[in-house]
């Protein structure tokens, strides 16, 4: 069953066409990696898939429902989509626990319940005992794990990751990939942009992009 689909997506920045009529559909529970050289349009496609950016032309569907970009799509992002970026983008004023709680409190989850969910997620990602710490009190790998916890907080079924291991050493990189695989095994759909082929090999499907078009799309047998 398709969870994400884009049809004839064109994205222009000024006169430059950075996505040239992309057609793509992603099934529920897939773990997809998008690879390609820098400037191939993979991040741009991810932002459109995540409803953070609107396409110049074309349509986006989530669960076969067409997204109206003129309406407020922030609620869909909050309930359905979790983002993980190369940089953790954690808010320095907040503790790790509070950072994970941010999507929950936006979803009007009761504070106690939000705390409980955030606490459990941090435990699941091996951060127990560090909930009350500020971000400068933990390592880069731990920060990225908090960012993953935040992306999962509202039980989002779509996780979009843009070079999530770009700033991590190899140990933490594989730790993050293990987490993604575990999350994926629980039915979450993951779309990950990366330029590292060995990481892409750990996913179930590799989409290759070049100059704003999809040049290859292959499913891997794991």
């Amino acid at each position: 069953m398709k969870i994400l689909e884009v049809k004839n997506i064109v994205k222009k920045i000024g006169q430059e066409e950075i996505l040239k009529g992309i057609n793509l559909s992603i099934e529920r529970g897939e773990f997809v990696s998008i690879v390609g050289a820098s400037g191939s349009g993979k991040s741009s496609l991810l932002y459109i898939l995540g409803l953070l950016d609107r396409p110049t032309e074309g349509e986006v569907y989530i669960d076969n429902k067409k997204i109206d970009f003129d309406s407020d799509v922030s609620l869909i992002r909050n309930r359905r989509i979790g983002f993980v970026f190369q940089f953790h983008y954690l808010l320095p004023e907040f503790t790790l626990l509070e950072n994970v709680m941010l999507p929950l409190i936006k979803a009007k989850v009761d504070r106690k319940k939000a705390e409980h969910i955030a606490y459990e997620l941090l435990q699941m990602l091996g951060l127990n005992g560090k909930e009350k710490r500020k971000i400068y009190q933990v390592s880069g790998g731990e920060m990225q794990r908090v960012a993953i916890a935040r992306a999962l907080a509202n039980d989002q079924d779509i996780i979009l990751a843009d070079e999530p291991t770009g700033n991590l050493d190899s140990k933490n990189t594989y730790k993050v990939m293990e987490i993604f695989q575990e999350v994926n095994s629980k039915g979450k759909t993951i779309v990950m942009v990366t330029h590292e082929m060995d990481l892409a090999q750990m996913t179930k499907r590799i989409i290759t992009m070049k100059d704003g078009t999809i040049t290859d799309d292959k499913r891997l047998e794991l």
Partner: protein
Amino acid sequence: MRYILFIALKLLLERKRQTTVSTLGVAIGVSAFIAMSSLMMGFQGYFIQQVIDLEPHITIKPTEEIDEKRIVKKFDGESLVEIYGSKPKEKDKIIGWKDLVEELQKENRISGVAPRLVTRGILKYGVKEKPVTILGIDPNLEPKASIVEKFLENKNLHLLKSDKDTVIIGKLVAKSLGIREINKKLILVTPNGNSQLVKVVDFFNSGITNIDDARVYINMKTLQALMERPNESNQIILKVKDVNEAEKISKNLQKRLPFQVESWQRAYANFLSIFKIQNIITYMIVIAILTVSAFGILNIISMTVMEKRKDIAILMAMGYSRMDILLIFLCQGLIIGAIGAIIGCIVGFGLQEYMESIELDVEGIVRTKGFVLDRSPMYYLYGSLFSLLFSILASFYPSYKASKLNPVDIFRSGG
């Protein structure tokens, strides 16, 4: 809204120094507003209240008509000379004043009517002389039309009835002549050259300098005799039930009566217009203070927005709407404004307490033993509302800019 408040508070608390400075700016503005308003309005209110208590609400005087025929036009050599300054056509008296007093006493909106004979004169005490305004009053009717007794130090108004050769003099008149106690005898000289020995039975101390420095009360009959104007009155004073209606009533009376009718508002129009200018200046200063504090808020919110671009982008990625972002930053301005207002109210209260405790002789238009304050709670309300309004105005633009940030641009640039 709770999540908006949660994030806004967190962001503010992490910038303690800037938040404190901005909050103090608002607090200073609010406390200045409260202190200055209560001082200015207290002084003005005191003055107006004294005037309302002391002065007639409405005064009826003979109309001073210039006899046009008496303006002399003549040739002085080659040029035409016009001479102005002709004497008033009417004599300085109200003809039929007794009937008029009776008629006015029946008016529903008028609570008291009293006749007066008013003239200028000189008081002599030893070698000292003092030009004064002599008010010949009817001691029976006068208390109904003005609260003269309230300002008498010894409450001896009744003595004007029993002993016709007595006077009540202003406190500053007494001070000028060197009189410190009652029962002193002095000479009252009227403009027609007559003089009489009179005894001081009381001092009149209203606190209004120009009144206390000029006024002498005497029995009207005594003054009539002294002025050789038996049974004459040149002023009828009225007390109305609603002081704010005085101008309206005076205009109605003016239409009916062939005399000059003047309300207290018109008699003190100069002072009232000075008060208006004074209020404008006061509020301009306060607005300037609040504007400076508003710029403080504008500065802190703008700085926060600039530094928090990455955080705004990730909040949007998490599903926070543009309205949420606008409210988060607007809320910060409001929190600064609200806390500033609370501190400002407390400091304003302290300033009022301090000003009230100061003992000093204020000598100006009014004389008091310290500051006269109007401690209306409305100044706290207005001050707080102004500060909140300024805070919202100051934080709106940077908040709006924050809500318009494009998260994709921020993610692309790596924050």
